[in-house]
Each structure stands twice: as structure tokens, then as C-alpha cells.
């Protein structure tokens, strides 16, 4: 499934920015901003999975939470199924929240320790007045079965369950209201490898089942390769490269993407002789991003132009987009 199929547009994001003010001094004057998300644009169609990959601190989680309107965007446009949600208040958002849900990274933190897992799954249904009484119990039972839990586990508390089981609960809670968009913020990175595969398979089954659009935020390229249709590589609040899974994995263009891919561990020792691109230094601070191309401080190919001029995200014929001065004809 690619972006070119005439599936309806679920999510339309244009030039989204989220800046946090840094206040200093006695009068809390705003002296600078942390540019966590600094102008990202993308579309997400029905049934499609877009993965946002990047290092820790590149702003991918902030992007997810801003799109879900858990945070107020500094500027930019967010349209959910054609409806502008970038600037509306919580009251307007509440009914819209049925359409978009979130799965968090840490299943130990995302479930209230004082609520039974049944109550956690029931909460979206009661909040949106979708079901009550015995119908509610039935719905929760169905959801439990759908995610591979036993209905009699409903009355247990989160601490009685393993990480994988808790993440199943979180998935059941997210799909309870039959959303059209689910944002997954590193949903498997806190789990064992064997459990990761189960959870990914479960998510893909559910996605096919209810035609779900997934925005999958991850730093793990091996996981992304399994689930994503398209991939956006993020660096310091902006996209470095956006393309289909095949384009990104087979034909990476941006030096940062190449470096990321070369860091993926390979299980086959014979393949390990490939050239590794090791990046020097740390990610620069998003409160004071480098001039020109944000990657130039760590880029092995950086030229003068890269230090002075911000490279635009240019889209090629196939929809593959790269933000690099040095890449031509992709």
C-alpha cells in the first residue's frame, strides 16, 4: 500500500511547530525557545502506516503528542479527516478524540496502577457514552479477546501483568472507540524481542481489521521495517528524508538516513563487513540548532553551503523527499 492509492486522507499536517519557551531571570523573561518540532509536514491515508524514526530527543514524541492535541502547537496545521484541529479547545476536541488514540511506550506507566485493567479498557467507552451496563461488559470482553487476553483477567490490576500483557491492554483501550488514527509512541521498545513480534503482529492484524491509520514513532529500524508503509526520518525537529519503506531501506539518500541504516545490527556475521558510518559527537541542542542544514555538524560530507543555507525538503518524482543540498536526481 503506498501513498498513491486513492485512499481517503486521514491526517494532513503542514509546517507543524512546537516550541517551548525557556524562561530565565527574576521576571521569567522568555530568552530562547526549545524547537522540539520545527516545521514538519506529511499526509497519512486510511489504512496506511507512517513511521517517524530518529534519535532520542529529535522531537518525534513531541510531534506525536502535538498531533493528538495533548500539546498546543506553536504554529502549523493539523487536519484530522479534513477537520482542522490545530487550534480548537478541549471542549471541541473531546468528541474528536474518539477518532484518534494513542499507545504509549512504557506499558508500566501508561496504565493507572489503581484501576483494574478492565476499567482501563472500559474508560473510553464510558467517556464517550458508547456503552454501559452489561453491554459495556460485553464490549470489554470482546476487546480482551481481540487482543489475546482472557476476559476473566478483567478484574486484575496492572501490576499483576507482564509488560506484553499490559501493552495488549493499552492496545485494547486504544481501539475500544474504533478510532481512525492511532499514534504509537515507541509501543514495543520497552518489551522483550519475542514479545515485540507478538505485539507488532497484533497491531498489524487490528490495522487490517478496522482500516486503521497508524503513526508509528520509533527509533528501532528493525521494527519499522516490519510495520511501516512509509518512513519519515527526523533530525532535530525537522524531517531529513521521507519515502516509502523500500525507498528508505534500499535507496537512502540523506547522509543521516545512511548513517542510521548502517547502525542497524545484522544477525548474519557474513554481512557485517559492510561499511559502517559512525557519526561523531552528540545531537546538538534543539534550543540552539546549527545554522544551515541542521545535520552539518555531524555530516561527513558537509560543504560550506550546508553550513549557511537551510536545505528545503525537495520531493522527487516518486514522492521520495530529501532535505540535502548534496543529493541530486533521486
Amino acid at each position, binding site marked *: 500500500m503506498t501513498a498513491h492509492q486513492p485512499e481517503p486522507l486521514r491526517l494532513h499536517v503542514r509546517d507543524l511547530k512546537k516550541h517551548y519557551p525557556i524562561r530565565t531571570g527574576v521576571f521569567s523573561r522568555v530568552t530562547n525557545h526549545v524547537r522540539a518540532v520545527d516545521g514538519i509536514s506529511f499526509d497519512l491515508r486510511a489504512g496506511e502506516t507512517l513511521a517517524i524514526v530518529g534519535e532520542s530527543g529529535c522531537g518525534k514524541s513531541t510531534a506525536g503528542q502535538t498531533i493528538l492535541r*495533548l500539546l498546543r502547537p506553536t504554529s502549523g496545521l493539523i487536519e484530522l479527516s479534513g477537520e482542522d484541529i490545530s487550534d480548537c479547545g478541549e471542549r471541541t476536541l473531546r468528541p474528536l*478524540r474518539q477518532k484518534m488514540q494513542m499507545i504509549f511506550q512504557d506499558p*508500566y506507566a*501508561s496504565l*493507572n*496502577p*489503581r484501576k483494574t485493567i478492565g476499567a482501563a479498557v472500559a474508560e473510553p467507552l464510558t*467517556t464517550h457514552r458508547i456503552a454501559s451496563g452489561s453491554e459495556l461488559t460485553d464490549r470489554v470482553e470482546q476487546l480482551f479477546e481481540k487482543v489475546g487476553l482472557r476476559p476473566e483477567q478483567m478484574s486484575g490490576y496492572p*501490576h499483576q501483568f507482564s509488560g506484553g500483557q499490559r501493552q495488549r491492554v493499552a492496545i485494547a483501550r486504544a481501539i475500544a472507540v474504533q478510532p481512525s488514527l492511532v499514534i504509537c509512541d515507541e509501543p514495543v521498545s520497552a518489551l522483550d524481542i519475542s514479545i515485540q513480534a507478538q505485539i507488532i503482529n497484533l497491531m498489524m492484524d487490528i490495522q487490517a481489521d478496522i482500516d486503521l491509520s497508524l503513526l508509528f514513532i520509533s527509533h528501532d529500524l528493525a521494527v519499522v521495517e516490519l510495520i511501516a508503509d512509509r518512513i519519515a526520518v527526523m533530525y532535530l525537529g525537522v524531517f531529513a528524508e521521507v519515502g516509502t519503506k523500500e525507498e528508505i531501506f534500499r535507496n537512502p539518500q540523506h547522509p543521516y538516513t545512511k548513517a542510521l541504516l548502517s547502525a542497524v545490527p545484522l544477525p548474519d556475521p557474513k554481512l557485517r563487513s559492510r561499511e559502517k558510518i559512525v557519526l561523531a559527537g552528540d545531537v546538538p541542542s534543539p534550543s540552539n540548532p546549527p545554522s544551515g542544514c541542521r545535520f552539518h555538524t555531524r555530516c561527513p560530507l558537509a560543504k560550506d553551503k550546508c553550513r549557511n543555507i537551510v536545505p528545503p525538503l525537495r520531493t522527487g518524482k516518486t514522492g521520495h523527499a530529501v532535505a540535502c543540498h548534496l543529493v541530486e536526481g533521486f
Partner: protein
Amino acid sequence: MGFSIPGHHGLRGVMTAFPSSQRNPVQAIGGHARSIAGWCLKEPTGAFGALILALLILAAIFAPVITSYEPNAVNYRDLLQPPGATHLLGTDELGRDIFSRLLYGARLSMAVGVSAVVLSVLVGVPIGLLSGYVGGFVDELIMRVFDSVIALPPLVLALTISALLGPGLVNATIAISIVSVPTYIRLTRGQVLSIKNEDYVLAARSIGVPVWNILFVHILPNAIAPVIVQASLGLGFAIILESSLSFIGLGAQPPVSTWGSMVQTSFQFLSLAPWFVIAPAVAIFAAVLGANLLGEGLRNSLDPHQKQRM
């Protein structure tokens, strides 16, 4: 329908319903001690405090059973009698039985202490929840107002408020509540600040749960443990404050007496009848000690972080 009860555990919750969790030790009640008996073994001093308070409360409730003397029955034949077989703790300047007055005084002292604590929790916790969750200007305003209350010495403030409202136990209760309410606001606010960014609160927001439900269903049950500890310590403080107000004459009015007003009366007969002052003073001491020991014990099990800081 085993899942429709959102985190309401009542008092039982203090002892039993804190599931152990590696991530949030505030909820871990020292391992898996899930019964009151287990807790008593783990926290013997806390259990001792609870025992003292329980005995005092039982004595207050069953006062008419324990003693046959009317607390206000004047007897001019037996003035200032020393402790003995007829009057267990002697008599006061009007020949009233001190033991009996102590038991009936316990009713009032305890009632004032407990209601002052309940009142300040009921007022302070919601304000703290709101202040911490909403943040910004509202938070700033609430905190500065109550900081100014904290800045005044509690006894002086309580004195001023009771003097303004007029002497009497109800007004004393109100004064004590006003003095202690900022503690609960600050405590709850601090808890909310750390909990409101937990993933499960974000998850509730992303579901679209209304603010009041987030505050009372998701945040409050996870924030309440230190408040329970503080309430227990606050009980001792409230009893002392009530005694002080009564000692000065702003609390209980004659012929009704609390421990504080008994100390005041007995003070005039210190050289004549020293036993008269000892009885109510020991009662105050025991109640405050009990409340503080219980508070310490609860703190150790509900809030292990605080252990070192104390």
C-alpha cells in the same frame, strides 16, 4: 461487572489496597504486607500510636460506661481531693471528678481535632488538585495567597482568627482548619505536579476524559498517600492547637471543658493540687504522641522517600 469501581478504597485502602509497584514506591506498602496485622509487625511504633489513639477514642465513646460520675456535677464536700479509690484522679476546685471530666473532655478534644483535620483536607485537597493541574496564573495566585498564611506563626494566626470569630469550640475548629489548610494544598499540589505528566494521565487526556474525572479518578487516588500521612500528623497538631486556644480561653467555654481548659483551671492550683494539672496534660501528650507515631508509621510504609529526609 468486576471492573466498574474506580479507585475508591475508603479507609481500608490505607492498610491493604496499595498494590506494590516498582515504578512508584509511594504506593508500595513496604513489600507485600497486606493485612493490618502484617503492618503492625512491620511498623511497631506506628501500631503503638494507633493503639494509643484507639484507646483514647474508645475511652471517649464509652465514657458513661467507664465512669459513674457526671463530669459537671459539683460537689462542695470533696474539693481538690488527691487521687484515691473514690476519685481515681482526684477532684477539681469545684469537687468534680477529674477522671470523668478527662473522659468527657476527650470527646470534645478528639472531635475538634478530627473535624479540623477533615475540614482542612476537604478544602485543601481539591484546591491543591486544581492549583497543580491547571497551573499558570491560577496556580500562582492560589500559592501566593496561602504562602502568606504559612508565613504567619500558626498559633498567633489561630488566636487572631478565633478572637475575631469569638470564643467557642466551633470557631476554634474553623481557626485550626484555616491554619492547617495551606499544608494540604501544598502537599497535594506537589503530588499533582509529578503525577500530571505520567503516561496514564496523558492516556486519559487522549481518550477525552473530562478534567474532573482525570483529577478525581486518575490523579487523586495516586496522590492521596502523603495526604493521609499528613492528616495523621495534623491530628496531633490540631489537638495541641485546640488545647492552646482553650488554655487561653478562646476554645471551650465553662462548664464544658476540654483538656486545654482543664490545664488552664488547674494551673491556678498548681501548688495546692499538682495532680490536677498532670492528668489533662498527660492526656494531651498521649494523644499527640499517638497521632505522631501513627503518622510516622504510615509515612514509612506509604512514602518511603520521606524516610531519610525526616
